[in-house]
């Protein structure tokens, strides 16, 4: 039984909520990822005769040749088309937990939302906390709670957008679950991935998590106001990231002091101009 609303659904179901929405009111998506219409082979009366028959059916091979992530990839492409049609710049923000993604978003929205409408999809295992912070800026936001899930997928984005209804011409910021591994495998239909690392992490991170850095278009190095207090070598970090992604761009920022943010905004403006 689902311990949120008592319905007969698994407790680890994916949910979609607005800030301030009570748990009992949430839209449950219990159909998480895989098809529940499994084949339970029922032996009806007449089949019993076949079971006792000793003429065995020959084992046979069925050629399948089907991509396993096909379903997610198709949905991601569908999302991509939808974003293009509505002239929405969708960005997938990825990082370790604690890099400052939400604070950066709060600041970006505060500074830019008169210039361009910004809508947000927040992803976490549990709580409405991040969506509430974003909601306080006035930007439209939806919180996806994945339960046990470690990443957002294309279906979640599709459903979140159906609820959120981002405006034509807006920037859609998708703050993925804090995780430098799994989100790299799941296309959401975004225009670009923004990987965020903070100076309180190790400067060799790009080498330790190459898949994510290879998949990103731009890397934001955040919390630069703390550089005097940590051992982080910014040049070394950028160099490490370039070995796994020669085309990666960098912006050094502090979401709290505001330093470097204008360069991040210029990157956004240039991508916005392209869409």
């Amino acid at each position, binding site marked *: 039984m689902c311990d949120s609303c008592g319905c007969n659904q698994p407790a680890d179901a994916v949910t979609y909520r607005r800030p301030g929405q009570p748990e009992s009111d949430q839209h449950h998506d219990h159909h998480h*990822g*895989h*098809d529940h219409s*499994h*084949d*339970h*082979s029922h032996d009806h009366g007449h089949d019993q005769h076949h079971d006792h028959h000793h003429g065995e*059916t*020959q*084992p*046979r*091979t*069925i*050629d*399948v*040749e*089907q*991509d*396993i*992530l096909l*379903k997610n990839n198709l949905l991601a492409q569908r999302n991509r088309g939808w974003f293009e049609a509505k002239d929405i710049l969708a960005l997938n923000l990825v990082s370790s937990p604690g890099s400052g993604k939400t604070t950066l978003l709060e600041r970006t929205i505060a500074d830019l939302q008169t210039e361009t409408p910004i809508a947000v999809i927040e992803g976490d295992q549990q709580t409405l906390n991040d969506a509430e912070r974003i909601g306080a800026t006035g930007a439209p936001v939806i919180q996806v709670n994945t339960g046990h899930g*470690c*990443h957002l997928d294309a279906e979640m984005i599709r459903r979140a957008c159906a609820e959120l209804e981002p405006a034509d011409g807006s920037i859609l910021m998708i703050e993925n679950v804090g995780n430098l591994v*799994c989100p*790299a*495998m*799941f296309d959401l239909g975004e225009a670009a991935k923004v990987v965020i690392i903070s100076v309180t992490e190790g400067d060799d991170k790009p080498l330790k998590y*190459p*898949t994510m850095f*290879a998949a990103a278009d731009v890397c934001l190095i955040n919390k630069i106001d703390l550089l005097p207090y940590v051992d982080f070598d910014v040049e070394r970090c950028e160099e490490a990231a370039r*070995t*796994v*992604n*020669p085309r990666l761009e960098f912006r050094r920022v502090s979401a709290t002091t505001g330093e470097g943010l204008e360069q991040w905004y210029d990157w956004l403006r240039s991508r916005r101009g392209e869409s």
Partner: protein
Amino acid sequence: MHEMSIAMNILDIASQQAREAGAKVVHSIEIEVGDLAGIEVAALEFCFETARRSTQATSTADLVVHRIEGTGRCVECRREVPVDFYIAFCPDCPNVGLEIIQGRELKVRSLQVD
């Protein structure tokens, strides 16, 4: 982790194909996993053993994994080299990147049924 959702996707594909072919039992599922696909095969095998019990048709199915080596081809000199990561450079041409032509596969190749 997501190897479980990959295992479930494999079983969904297998169940559907078996159903369409009128087969009752899936004996084995052959998959291709490229070395650059981002999948931990041991974790996948572990998850598969549990997940296969979700349907009667697949409950005793074996998972046969064909691993595909990563190969890159230089965009300039066309030389093909084995690679273990999808950002790689040509050993002969300075700073020229390799196009990955093999190693990112993640698919169900075939099933043995009934």
